[in-house]
């Protein structure tokens, strides 16, 4: 048979699977988001776009803004921490590059929950750090690290840092060190070299890393739940609560769609700029 035909044949099973078990559920989410519930929480389909109005109710705006804010803070911190690490390994790793990057990634193989729990154990009021703080007499009752917004951001950074480091490393590793030397001679200053030589090569990696960290961080609920307090409610917690606690599926579904639409906008901006960048690069 023709190659095209054969290829389509192979495409079919997975295509069908994704259509039925991914596209259809998303469709159900949309449908439920426009419905209501009956007394025993069965979803009742209908046309209730006011669910979406509820999402933008000023009461929930803090939650939405906070999620974006935390996610942005996470991205910035991951970038500040991840870039030097990726740069160091890419530029100075030598023969040990692979080993070093594996070592860097290794802690992130540990289950996200276990890692978060590790920080809970370490930073709790009876944890290691507070033990040292009180023994050293720095504070009488210990410092409250947990149940604060920064604890949540810290948890997010710790959770997603690898997603920043790996693309950064990939991009920086592709860079030819000779270019940096040439740039130094050409531009004369480190800052100029960085700006004109390193940064353009790294940019793709930075953009990819930012996207890979930002998207999941916005929807995260684990850090907020385990490390946060009464004032760190994120949109992920809200969605989780609507589905698993309040059984208000229409509202939860509407929230889900809105969040996903928001993230898809950023994603398409990224993809478009990446496509443009690669066109320019090959031009």
């Amino acid at each position: 048979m023709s190659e095209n035909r054969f290829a389509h044949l192979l495409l079919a099973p997975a295509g069908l699977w994704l259509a039925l078990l991914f596209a259809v559920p998303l469709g159900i989410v949309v449908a439920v988001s426009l419905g209501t519930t009956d007394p025993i929480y069965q979803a009742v389909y209908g046309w209730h776009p006011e669910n979406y109005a509820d999402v933008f109710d000023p009461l929930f705006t803090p939650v939405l803004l906070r999620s974006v804010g935390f996610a942005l803070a996470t991205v910035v911190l991951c970038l500040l921490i991840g870039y030097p690490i990726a740069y160091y390994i890419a530029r100075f790793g030598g023969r040990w590059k692979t080993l070093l990057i594996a070592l860097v990634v290794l802690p992130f193989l540990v289950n996200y929950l276990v890692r978060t729990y590790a920080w809970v154990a370490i930073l709790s009021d009876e944890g290691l750090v507070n033990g040292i703080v009180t023994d050293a007499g720095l504070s009488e009752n210990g410092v409250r690290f947990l149940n604060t917004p920064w604890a949540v951001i810290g948890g997010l950074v710790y959770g997603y840092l690898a997603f920043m480091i790996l693309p950064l490393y990939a991009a920086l590793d592709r860079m030819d060190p000779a270019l940096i030397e040439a740039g130094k001679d050409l531009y004369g200053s480190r800052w100029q070299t960085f700006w004109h030589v390193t940064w353009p090569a790294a940019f793709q990696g930075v953009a990819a890393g930012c996207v890979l960290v930002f998207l999941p961080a916005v929807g995260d609920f684990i850090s907020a739940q385990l490390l946060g307090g009464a004032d760190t409610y994120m949109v992920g917690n809200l969605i989780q609560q609507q589905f698993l606690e309040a059984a208000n599926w229409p509202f939860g579904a509407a929230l889900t769609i809105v969040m996903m639409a928001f993230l898809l906008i950023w994603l398409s901006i990224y993809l478009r700029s990446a496509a443009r960048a690669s066109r320019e690069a090959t031009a």
Partner: protein
Amino acid sequence: MGEGAEFDVGPSANRGDLVSTEGWAERVPLARRRPRRRRGRDFDRPVFLRVFFIVFMFFTFAPIVIVALFSFNSTPSLQNFTGFSTQWYDEFFSNVGLRESLVASIEIALVTMVVATVLGTTLAFGLVRARSRLAQSSNVLMLIPLVTPEIVAGTSALLLFAQIGIDLSLLTIMIAHITFSISFVTVIVRARLSALNREVEEAALDLGATRMQTLRLIVLPALWPAIIASALLIFALSFDDFVISFFTTGESPTPLPVQIYSSIRFGVTPTINAIGTSMLVISFLILAVAVALPRLLGRREEENVLIGRETA
């Protein structure tokens, strides 16, 4: 202020760029002139970066090490290490519920790995070789799960099962995991596939082989490392997964990460440390196999695919 002679310009004093007509600012090493920031620049001797790296490794490994260390504590304390004991591991492996969770997690990961790899590989082949509108939309359909937040994945799967009327169980978890794993396989295998040299295939076809035979005898062996790599990745992702499992799990047995979550929320003991450390060992073994396998097969360039250096 002379032309730089009086300034201690640090380790790069012998660089030609300093004897230039640029202003004062360029001649002072960045480490001096900027406040200590964590922003890397182009250093010649990476003292700062090296220190940063070491501090970084300390902070990323410390929690893991502490978790592992306290999993061997002889008392339930998470603050004072009082002695060595394997009691928490005993508790983990003798607790029927936890054992079942471990087995469940492995089962789910295995099934997910096999099915997702098969589906993902065939999809990759189809996307690379098929030309049609359908293929293009399939491509888009394939990409969306990659960027779908896990919570959306979990809730949409939950809604599907609830509206159809399927009770939650291991099967529902598997279905949800497979759905979101296919795309990973496809992306990895496709990268390798599009870099393959078609000539051998075409030669085989000219010689009378069917498409299936060509696929089986020529394409698959060449794709093997990518397939294995993605399979192992899927296993690790599924084994570790929490969010999707959380929304699609029944009550017994629940996968291990969901158990950990319940324990953290409802009653913490160092048994969690034992579970976490065991999971780490399993994940580490998977990674080790994934890295070592290409070497064993003598294919160094596959390593590059894994690390992301491959530009195909």
